[in-house]
């Protein structure tokens, strides 16, 4: 077995083992066993960092840099033969994308474990909480390590279950239970589409393995397949399957209209929020879009054209709308965790824009940087909540003096997410926006050019709002005067277990894009120069490792499973799996160059504008003017009501469900229960009759036999007098009788 596979297996299965041990006997250990999942994930983190270092250490080639992808599969289900062969394998697949995800998941998860030791200290079911964290980590690791869609789906559902367990962790709270159900059910809607998408893919490609699916797209297995939705309206099956499959990420990554569960998920303990929002759950959707990027793009992908796919356009529009919608809602929230939740929804929208406009590398890079600063923000918010025992920002204010570590780490992360230059969030967001603008330029002479421009417009507005509402938290929580003197007096800085993750994460929020990449790009360039492949090296370190070319070239698509062994495909087949240089690529490159400077300036401008307005409204001169009661009253009301989306669902989906349930209940109560009761009545009557027959007929015969025998005995015992004379008289009578009978006969 390959070393990489071995290491990945250890990373994957350690948390599972820890979970199994912890859930059963964890409470008997010292400190209720919290060290067990923590160390399991900690070891996973070290091994992931080793893989990451290996990835960074490899020499770039013409297909980009990084690990040579490896895959190991184990047979799981094998039935049938020939065309009807069902061959499902469990596989581990490791490439650059996987390694990056492994680092994100294990790092954030490990820090959340450590943080939870402080935050959850003394809580009920403390041991169980750590067991669930372990299972959550395992599910997410399984998701990123799976080599085929079916196992992605299995782990995808496991992630859903874990989120249910952890969001509803405070089981005694009704709101937590409701939020857990909401998360699970909303995700289920998306998962249904995902499953149908997978089934269509299996039907066409005959396999769920990523490389086989890509190969099916490349070799034209989807061509000329359309699906008729209504008369006159038909779409290509690939588009249809892609849109269905995107429903999965829509649910998990909280895209409009399935985003409603994520803010409610704040009912869970704060470390769980951090885990869900940064590394495990919502990342799954973006990861999947990235991993399945060639599938969503369609055959154009293999000509290097990522810009004409209807699926990707839908993804970009949904992402863009989600980004601006969530960002505006976040402005009106007063609960610090709710603001962060909507901020996550908004940032996920950014990632989807990135995927949609064709730069999934930057989308995943945003996921990577976002994981660090969002985890830091959540853990910082948790630290504040822990200190003042309230989530409402109206209870906070002036906390920067009391909680310096929390303040500074929170401020750094806020700057990162707001897009302050030279921090990680700036680079990733700017990368996405540049591509979005280039996308708009690329489609500039199309009649529907406005539709193609929407992702950028949404994105840039959302960026402004992001800066605005994030600094609103800073001003309201850490600056100004304490609004609740009593709570302020009792506030204190969190202890080491909670402060350490904050410092680590804020450090990463600074270096993960700005300083680290400077070093890495320099190194990659010098390496590439030696390898005479300098043209392949991007300016940006992350893109060297995660790129469309890398995604396909790295797939072991050059091999197929024959007779239990990996055999090379024919050269002709392999050729399909290479991305050809095309006109679209060159044109896009041109647009990208054009878009670079405007986006850079616009990004910096909107970020500064957001921060400035935020300062003006919440700390500065406009502070005393109550805007929400005055000119913005109507709009504020809409925002506080979350654009009436939850209300709309309550009135339509939920109300309809209740109505349907009532009708079903009525039917059940009157018709089904009547039939059942009638049947019961008939049975009782029949049994009654049968009982009577049994009692009087069968039992009667038995008892009568007994009674007759008894009576006969009682009668005949009187003959037995013991007196000789009676016996003599009796014998005599019998003799006479015999003689009489004899006489009669003769």
């Amino acid at each position: 077995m390959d070393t990489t596979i071995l290491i990945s297996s250890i990373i994957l299965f350690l948390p599972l083992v820890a979970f199994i041990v912890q859930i059963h006997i964890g409470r008997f250990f010292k400190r209720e066993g919290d060290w067990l999942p923590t160390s399991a994930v900690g070891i996973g983190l070290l091994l992931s960092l080793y893989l990451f270092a290996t990835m960074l250490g490899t020499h770039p080639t013409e297909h980009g840099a990084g690990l040579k992808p490896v895959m190991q599969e184990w047979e799981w289900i094998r039935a049938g033969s020939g065309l009807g062969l069902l061959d499902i394998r469990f596989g581990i697949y490791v490439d650059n994308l996987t390694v990056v995800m492994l680092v994100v998941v294990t790092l954030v998860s490990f820090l959340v474990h450590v943080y939870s030791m402080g935050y959850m200290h003394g809580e009920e079911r403390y041991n169980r909480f750590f067991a669930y964290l372990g299972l959550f980590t395992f599910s997410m690791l399984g998701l990123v390590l799976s080599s085929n869609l079916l196992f992605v789906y299995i782990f995808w559902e496991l992630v859903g279950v874990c989120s249910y367990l952890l969001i509803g962790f405070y089981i005694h709270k009704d709101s937590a239970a409701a939020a857990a159900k909401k998360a699970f059910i909303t995700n289920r809607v998306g998962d249904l589409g995902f499953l149908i998408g997978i089934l269509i893919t299996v039907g066409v490609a005959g396999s769920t393995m990523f490389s086989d699916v890509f190969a099916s797209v490349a070799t034209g297995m989807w061509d000329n397949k359309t699906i008729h939705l209504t008369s006159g309206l038909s779409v290509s099956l690939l588009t249809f399957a892609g849109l269905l499959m995107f429903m999965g990420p829509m649910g998990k990554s909280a895209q409009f209209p399935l985003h409603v569960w994520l803010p409610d998920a704040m009912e869970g303990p704060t470390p769980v929020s951090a885990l869900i929002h940064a590394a495990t759950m919502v990342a799954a959707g973006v990861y999947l879009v990235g991993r399945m990027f060639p599938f969503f793009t369609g055959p154009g992908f293999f000509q290097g054209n990522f810009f004409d796919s209807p699926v990707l356009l839908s993804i970009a529009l949904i992402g863009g709308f989600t980004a601006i919608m969530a960002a505006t809602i976040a402005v009106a929230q007063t609960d610090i965790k709710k603001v962060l939740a909507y901020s996550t929804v908004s940032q996920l929208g950014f990632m989807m824009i990135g995927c949609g406009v064709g730069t999934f590398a930057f989308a995943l890079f945003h996921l990577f940087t976002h994981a660090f600063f969002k985890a830091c923000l959540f853990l910082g918010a948790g630290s504040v909540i822990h200190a003042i025992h309230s989530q409402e920002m109206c209870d906070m204010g002036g906390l920067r003096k009391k909680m310096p570590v929390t303040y500074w780490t929170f401020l750094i992360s806020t700057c990162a997410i707001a897009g302050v230059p030279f921090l990680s969030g700036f680079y990733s967001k700017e990368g996405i926006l540049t591509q979005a603008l280039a996308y708009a330029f690329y489609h500039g002479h199309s009649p529907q050019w406005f539709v193609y421009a929407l992702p950028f417009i949404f994105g840039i507005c959302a960026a402004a709002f992001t800066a605005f509402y994030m600094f609103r938290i800073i001003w309201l929580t850490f600056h100004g005067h304490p609004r609740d003197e009593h709570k302020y007096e009792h506030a204190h800085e969190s202890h080491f277990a909670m402060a350490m993750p904050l410092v680590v994460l804020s450090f990463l929020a600074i270096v993960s894009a700005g300083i680290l990449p400077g070093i890495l790009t320099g190194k990659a360039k010098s390496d590439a120069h030696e390898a005479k492949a300098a043209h392949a090296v991007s300016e940006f370190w992350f893109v060297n490792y995660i790129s469309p070319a890398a995604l396909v070239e790295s797939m072991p698509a050059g091999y197929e499973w024959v007779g239990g062994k990996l055999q090379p495909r024919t050269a002709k087949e392999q050729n399909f799996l290479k991305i050809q240089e095309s006109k679209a690529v060159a044109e896009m490159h041109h647009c990208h160059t054009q878009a670079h400077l405007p986006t850079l300036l616009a990004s910096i401008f909107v970020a500064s504008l957001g921060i400035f307005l935020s300062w003006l409204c919440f700390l500065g001169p406009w502070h005393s003017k109550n805007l929400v009661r005055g000119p913005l009253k109507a709009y504020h009301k809409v925002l506080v009501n979350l654009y009436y989306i939850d209300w709309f669902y309550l009135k339509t989906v939920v109300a309809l469900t209740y109505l349907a349930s009532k009708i079903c209940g009525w039917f059940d109560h009157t018709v089904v229960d009547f039939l059942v009761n009638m049947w019961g009545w008939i049975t009782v009557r029949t049994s009654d009759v049968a009982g009577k027959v049994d009692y009087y007929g069968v039992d009667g015969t038995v008892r009568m036999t007994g009674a007759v025998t008894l009576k006969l005995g009682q009668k005949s015992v009187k003959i037995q007098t013991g007196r000789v004379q009676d016996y003599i008289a009796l014998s005599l009578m019998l003799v006479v009788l015999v003689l009489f009978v004899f006489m009669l006969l003769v």
Partner: protein
Amino acid sequence: MNFNWLTDIGLTHYLTVSVVIFSLGIAVILAKRNAIAILMGIELLLNAACLNFVAFSHFGNGAQSGQVVAVFIIVIAAAEAAVALAIIVCVYRMFNLIAVDQIAKMKE
């Protein structure tokens, strides 16, 4: 009126006497409570039988076997009386009475 049956003594007369004696014997056996009286009843039965044998022998085919049986019966009656009396003595010793209706040990 023909009174021949009074003068012409035949088998029927003997048998009639025998039946009467036998019936008396039976009556004694069933009615009497004293064991010795019962023994006497038994003697009556034996004698009735004896008379039958002799009568049949006399009016029969001339063979004398009936006479012989009568002698046997007398002998047996004697022996029987001896044994029965001995039993009665035993019974008396055991129960201190010989009223057979009060002795119901055979029931047990």
